Structures are given as structure tokens and as C-alpha cells.
């Protein structure tokens, strides 16, 4: 019989929930996360991550230094605008990038006896990861205030409630949006509502008959003393500090109540039930299903097997992935509504670069949104199938080409949707504009696919395609974009330079044709190399993609 003598401990675990116990739980979660990171990172390309991180955060440290210089000398204007920008970056950018930063893996932690309040505060602290950039800016502002000879050093303390307000509000915003996007029937409607909310201010400012005076008045109202950013600026600059502090405390309390309520609802939320398909089939749903089935079969009509089967599988998989659907939808909705008012200007006929290259600009924005699933991490997105690709009796080059063709299928579809919506909105769509946007997207895509084939194999990261909001820190994604996108845009930039220098469309398209030829050679070389890499690293790739995370998903 088995003896329990070696571990004959006290029979019962402690039952009281003292403060110590709560702190121990928090420490245990953070400890487990630290161990997970430590165990995981040395096994991946930490050098590359460090390099892009250094460039990206170096830029923000420089910006923080500039803010420090600004705030360390006597201030003649209110800092309200700076804090409004900080607020928008903290709360709005994660929505625009569909990236919610690191967050607790509640699915796993819910099984343990951890109080909701404990998880809430940890989650609030994790909202720092959404916007490390603005934390740097706030630090710069704080140091500047301390060094400012006309202000007291303790004025800098006003930054703490403002930061706390943003952290706490971030939890509520994230939880509300994530839950709405997980609901099968209302997510699309909610998404369009969100788009309208995001686009409304721009449309009002640029398309509405808002005169400069009224705009100024509106901006003045934006710096109304009751806003948290204005109250923060007032406190820091020593104006009506008691009132400012009371306002900040009220905002913090309101954000806390709202976010805690939303967090509790998330804890009780059943993702499976919310996303379940209806069991009955109406005539309409049957028609829609048949239409979608024909759409899925489209690649197989053009391509023979196994390529046809590979592309069809990807089209089915990506179309059913909430994460991919969100970024695809954002490409031709957010993209259009955000850039449209800027492009048109207040007269509706802007001759600016953005106005005359509107379709191309929106197409590029959509490419950025689609890039993770289509270029940078296509195996990570499709992690469950990765092993099958290595086992299937198909040359790996075919698998890569299949992945690339699926990406192109969705890119063409996306730009097609953008064009269609532009047409519906009455935007001028000349054949030249269309040719330009499709050619530019094609050239950039070829270079991106060449780079993506390498990155997807060398840096595979497991993704959860069911999570509409990506957990990965937005800073990391922006860092990738910061380094790679400018390089990918160089060939296209040369084409625009040729058009500018020679004032000739022929020069523009000629350079694009040369770019495409170079891109094709680069793509072929990259593909051959990627096949060799896949053979060499297949064990590591499959292992990396089969991994989960620690208690915090990042």
C-alpha cells in the first residue's frame, strides 16, 4: 500500500482570507508569470525582440525627455492637451489596433480560489502593458514638474490618480468590448456602432459646417475643468488644486465602479454559450450558408489539389476566426471612416497627398491590420494545423505557397471591399487610382510575403484565433511595424519618387514593374530558404506552436 508518510502535512489548508493570503496569491501569480517568461524567452530569438524594443522604446524615451524639458521650465499654456493625448493613446489606440496588451488568463485562474477583487487589481496593473509608451511620457512629465522652479515638487503627485484612472478604466473598456465582440448575434452591430463613435468627431470636424470659431469653442469645451486630463493639468500647474483633486477622485471612483462591474460580468461570461451557433436553420440562414459555402469553394475552382485544398482550408479557417474577421472588417470600415474625413478636408475636395491617394492609403492601413495573420505569423494563427503540414505528403514549398495565396486572396478581397465602399460613398474612382492601389498593394505584399515566410518559421508565436482582441502588447506589434514596414515601403516609395521627379505615370508604373520583378526574385529566394528552414526547425516550430502561456497571456 502506498504510504503518504513523506508528505503527511497538516490536513487542511488555511481557510481564512487575510490580507497576507491575498498578497501571497498576487505574488504567486506574478512569480509564476516571471518563471514562465524566464523559462520561455531564452529559447526564442530574444535578440531580435530586444533590438526592435530598443528602437521603439528608445523613440518614446526621447519623446519623454522632450516632455521633461517642456515641463521643467515655466509653463505658459495648459498641459491639458498633452494629457488628453495620453488618455486617447491609453484608451483608444488599443481599440484601433485590436490589441489589448497582456492580461490575466481568467479561463485558467477562475478554477482556483482567488477573489474577484484580487484578479481585478492585478488586471488593472496589467493595463500598463497596453501603453508603456505613455507611462514613459508621464514619467518625463513628472520629472519635469519636479525640476520646474515655478512649481512644487509634490505637484507631480497629480499624475498618480490620472494614471490610476487610466489603468482602471482600461479594464472596463477592454472587458466591455471583448464581451460584446464575443457575442455571436450582436457583435457585428456593436462593431459598427463602435466605428461610428470613433469616426463621428472627425466627420463633424472635417465634413460638418463647423467654423473655426466653433471648433475653438469646442476645443475649449474639451479642456473643460471637469475632464480628468484638464484636472490633472490644473493640479500639476497649481491651479485650484483641491477642486482638481476632487474631480480626479470622482473620475477614479466612477471608472473603478464601472470597470469592476464589467470585470465581474466578464468573470461570469460564458464565451462558448455566447458564440454558439443556432441549432435551427431558417430559409435565410440556409441561403446564407450556401452562399458562404460557394465562397469557400472559390479557390478550389481556380487551383488544382493539393494547392486548392490548402487554400480552401485556410479560407475556411480564417473566415471562421473571430480575430481575423475583426481585423478584416476593420480594414474597410475603420480604415475608410478614419482616413476619409482627413482625405477630403472640409471642402470635400482635398488636393493633398492623402486626398489624391486615398484608396492606396486605406489599402495600406488594411494591409497593416491583416499582416499578422497573412504575413508575420501565419503558422501561429493556424497552430493546430502546423503539425499536419509537416506530416502531409505534400512538398513544404506547396504549403508555403498555399499560405501565401490565401493571404493574397484576402488582400484582394479587402481592397475590393474598400473600393466598393468608396464607390458607394461617391468617392472618385478612376481606373488609374484603382490600378495604383492594387499595384502598390501587390508589390508591398510580395516583399511582405518574402519576409513573412521567414518570420513565420523563425519566430512562430502561438495565437488564439478565437480571441477577437489580441493579447500581445501593442508596443511589440508597433515595434515590428516600426522596423519592417518602412523597409517594405522603400520600393514603392521609389516609384512615388519617380512620379514626383518625372511627373509621369509611366515612370511610376515602370518603377513598380521593376519592383515587382525584384520582389519576385526575393520571394523565390526566400521561399527556397524557408523550405530549408522548415525542414531544419520543424521540431522547434511544432513545439513552439503547441505551447500555452503562464497565468498572464502576453
Amino acid at each position, binding site marked *: 500500500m502506498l504510504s503518504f508518510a513523506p508528505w503527511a502535512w497538516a490536513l487542511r489548508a488555511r481557510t481564512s482570507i487575510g490580507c497576507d493570503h491575498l498578497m501571497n*496569491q498576487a505574488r504567486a501569480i506574478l512569480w509564476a508569470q516571471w518563471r514562465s517568461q524566464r523559462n520561455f524567452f531564452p529559447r526564442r530569438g530574444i535578440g531580435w525582440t530586444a533590438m526592435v524594443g530598443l528602437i521603439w522604446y528608445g523613440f518614446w524615451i526621447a519623446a519623454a525627455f522632450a516632455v521633461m524639458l517642456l515641463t521643467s521650465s515655466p509653463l505658459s499654456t495648459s498641459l491639458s492637451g498633452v494629457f488628453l493625448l495620453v488618455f486617447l493613446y491609453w484608451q483608444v489606440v488599443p481599440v484601433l489596433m485590436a490589441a489589448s496588451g497582456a492580461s490575466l488568463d481568467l479561463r485558467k485562474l477562475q478554477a482556483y480560489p482567488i477573489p474577484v477583487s484580487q484578479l481585478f487589481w492585478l488586471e488593472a496593473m496589467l493595463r500598463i502593458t497596453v501603453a508603456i509608451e505613455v507611462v514613459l511620457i508621464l514619467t518625463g512629465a513628472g520629472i519635469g514638474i519636479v525640476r520646474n522652479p515655478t512649481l512644487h515638487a509634490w505637484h507631480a503627485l497629480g499624475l498618480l490618480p490620472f494614471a490610476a484612472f487610466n489603468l482602471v478604466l482600461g479594464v472596463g473598456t477592454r472587458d466591455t468590448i471583448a464581451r460584446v465582440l464575443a457575442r455571436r448575434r450582436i457583435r457585428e452591430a456593436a462593431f459598427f456602432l463602435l466605428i461610428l463613435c470613433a469616426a463621428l468627431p472627425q466627420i463633424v470636424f472635417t465634413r460638418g459646417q463647423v467654423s473655426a470659431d466653433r471648433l475653438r469653442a469646442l476645443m475649449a469645451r474639451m479642456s473643460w475643468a471637469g475632464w480628468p486630463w484638464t484636472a490633472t493639468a490644473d493640479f500639476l500647474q497649481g491651479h485650484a488644486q483641491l477642486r482638481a483633486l476632487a474631480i480626479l477622485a470622482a473620475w477614479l471612483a466612477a471608472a473603478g465602479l464601472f470597470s469592476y462591474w464589467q470585470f465581474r460580468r466578464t468573470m461570469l461570461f460564458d464565451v462558448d454559450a455566447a458564440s454558439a451557433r443556432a441549432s435551427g436553420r431558417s430559409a435565410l440562414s440556409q441561403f446564407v450558408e450556401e452562399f458562404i459555402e460557394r465562397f469557400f469553394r472559390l479557390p478550389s475552382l481556380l487551383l488544382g489539389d493539393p494547392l486548392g485544398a490548402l487554400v480552401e482550408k485556410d479560407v475556411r479557417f480564417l473566415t471562421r476566426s473571430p480575430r481575423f474577421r475583426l481585423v478584416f472588417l476593420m480594414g474597410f470600415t475603420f480604415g475608410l471612416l478614419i482616413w476619409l474625413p482627413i482625405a477630403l478636408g472640409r471642402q470635400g475636395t482635398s488636393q493633398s497627398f492623402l486626398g489624391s491617394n486615398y484608396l492606396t492609403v486605406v489599402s495600406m492601413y488594411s494591409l497593416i491590420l491583416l499582416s499578422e495573420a497573412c504575413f508575420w505569423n501565419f503558422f501561429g494563427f493556424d497552430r493546430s494545423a502546423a503539425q499536419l503540414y509537416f506530416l502531409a505528403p505534400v512538398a513544404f514549398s506547396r504549403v508555403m505557397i498555399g499560405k501565401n495565396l490565401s493571404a493574397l486572396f484576402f488582400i484582394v478581397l479587402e481592397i475590393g471591399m474598400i473600393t466598393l465602399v468608396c464607390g458607394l460613398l461617391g468617392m472618385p474612382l478612376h481606373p488609374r487610382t484603382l490600378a495604383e492601389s492594387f499595384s502598390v498593394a501587390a508589390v508591398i505584399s510580395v516583399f511582405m510575403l518574402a519576409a513573412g515566410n521567414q518570420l513565420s518559421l523563425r519566430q512562430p508565436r502561438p495565437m488564439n484565433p478565437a480571441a477577437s482582441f489580441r493579447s500581445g502588447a501593442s508596443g511589440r506589434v508597433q515595434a515590428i511595424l516600426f522596423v519592417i514596414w518602412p523597409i517594405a515601403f522603400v520600393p514603392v516609395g521609389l516609384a512615388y519618387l519617380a512620379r514626383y521627379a518625372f511627373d509621369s505615370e509611366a515612370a511610376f508604373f515602370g518603377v513598380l514593374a521593376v519592383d515587382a520583378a525584384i520582389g519576385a526574385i526575393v520571394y523565390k529566394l526566400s521561399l527556397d530558404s524557408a523550405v530549408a528552414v522548415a525542414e531544419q526547425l520543424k521540431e522547434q516550430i511544432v513545439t513552439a506552436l503547441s505551447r500555452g502561456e503562464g497565468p498572464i497571456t502576453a
Partner: protein
Amino acid sequence: MSDLSRDTAPAIEVRDLRKLYDQKAAVDGLTLSVPRGCFFGFLGPNGAGKTTTIKMLMGLAPPTSGSIHLLGLPMPEQGLAIKRQIGLVPDESLLFDHLTGGEFIEFVGRIYGLERTVARERSLELLNLFELGNASRKLIAEYSKGMRKRVAMAAALIHRPQLFLMDEPFEGVDAVGARLMKDILLEQVRHGATIFLTSHVLEVVERLCDRVAIINEGKLVQEGSMDELRGSSQTLEDAFVRAVGVGASRENLDWL
């Protein structure tokens, strides 16, 4: 409920439990009572609603309707107090893959309120007990399926719970490992713990469990002691097949 009646209440009491996924019932009016100190097997074919039921018991999925009482306490109202007294061997996706086995067990111990040094000490002892000592430096991601189940069970034991909820604990475990796990579980029952497990390995259920319930399409189709369930059948497998019906015919698949 007073402390006394709570102590004598069934370990698990479920009444008219329902879980709907868009009007389709995954669990449909399940009523079940598991006495304390019982080794209870919860069986059913694939998609019958076993995992959904165990998720609801663990507090991982809210029921659409019905009530759950564990150890005399209502779920989810007393969720924290209940969770402190139960040990979970969940679906293996709930493990933290980037931790080593020892780190994971220690983490669970600390979450259950054990002192850090105690948690570490016990995690090492449990690793050795479950013969995972040689793999103590490996990440859980690198474990085989059987090793993952062993580490999950080791973690479930660290705080000496009164009730164990186990989802397929023997899946992928080799014969030696399964024997070890069975011995440990029987020892726990002898000490007064209650075990509620789902399993597809009917031989294991037949050998270990005092009572068994069979669920099919979300509904309870049979419940009773092992002898009651077997009835005129020779084995549990016969009784199970009789209760849930046989699968589709292969006669039309000439090519197979």
C-alpha cells in the same frame, strides 16, 4: 445552512441543471447526488455533456438554470469557500505550459494559501511521488499527455482537498502511472475524500467506483451502484452500451 448540516450534506448535489448553447441543451435537467466519501464515476459517450457538467461544478461555466451545492455550499454564491476545499484535475489545457512541473505544483499550492516554503517542499515530494522527479526541469509544454495528467493530479493533491473533480484523469497515462494514480485516489477515499471523475476507460471505472451515473445527450439515463447498473449484464461496458445505444451501421461503407 448550519455547520453540522453542511458537514453531513452530500459532497455534490445538483438539481435540474441545464446548460444551453443557443437553445441547444448540452446538459438537460441533470439531477444528481454524490454522497461523501464516495468514488463516483460519471460516464457518457463523446459530446454527452460530461465536460460541460464538470466545468459547471468547477465554476468555469455558469449554468443556464438549476442549482449546484458542493460540500453543502451553493455554487457560485460560495464559490471561493468551495474552491478552497476541492482539488481539480481539469482539462489539460488549463495547465501553464511555460512552467516546469514543480513550478506549477508550487504555484497551485501558493494559490491555495500554503506558505511558500511548504508549497515548494510539497511540490518536490509530489513530483517524486508521481515519478516526475527526473523531469523536474522540463517545461510542461514538453511533457507527454500522461505526464501532464500526473502533474495535474499532483497539483490537485497539494492542499489535501475534501472533494476531487477530475476530467479524464487517466487519459494517456501508462499502466504504471495509472496504477499509481489509482492507489493514491483510493487512499484519498479511505481518508474520507469524495472523488467525482469522468472517464472513457470503463475497466478503470468498474474497478474503482462505488457509484456510477451515465449521461447521454445531456440527460441522465442511469445512476446507481455498480451492481445496480450492471444488472443482468456481465460488464459495465455492456451496461453502458445498452444505456446509450449502439453507433451507426457500417454496412453501407463498402470501401471501408
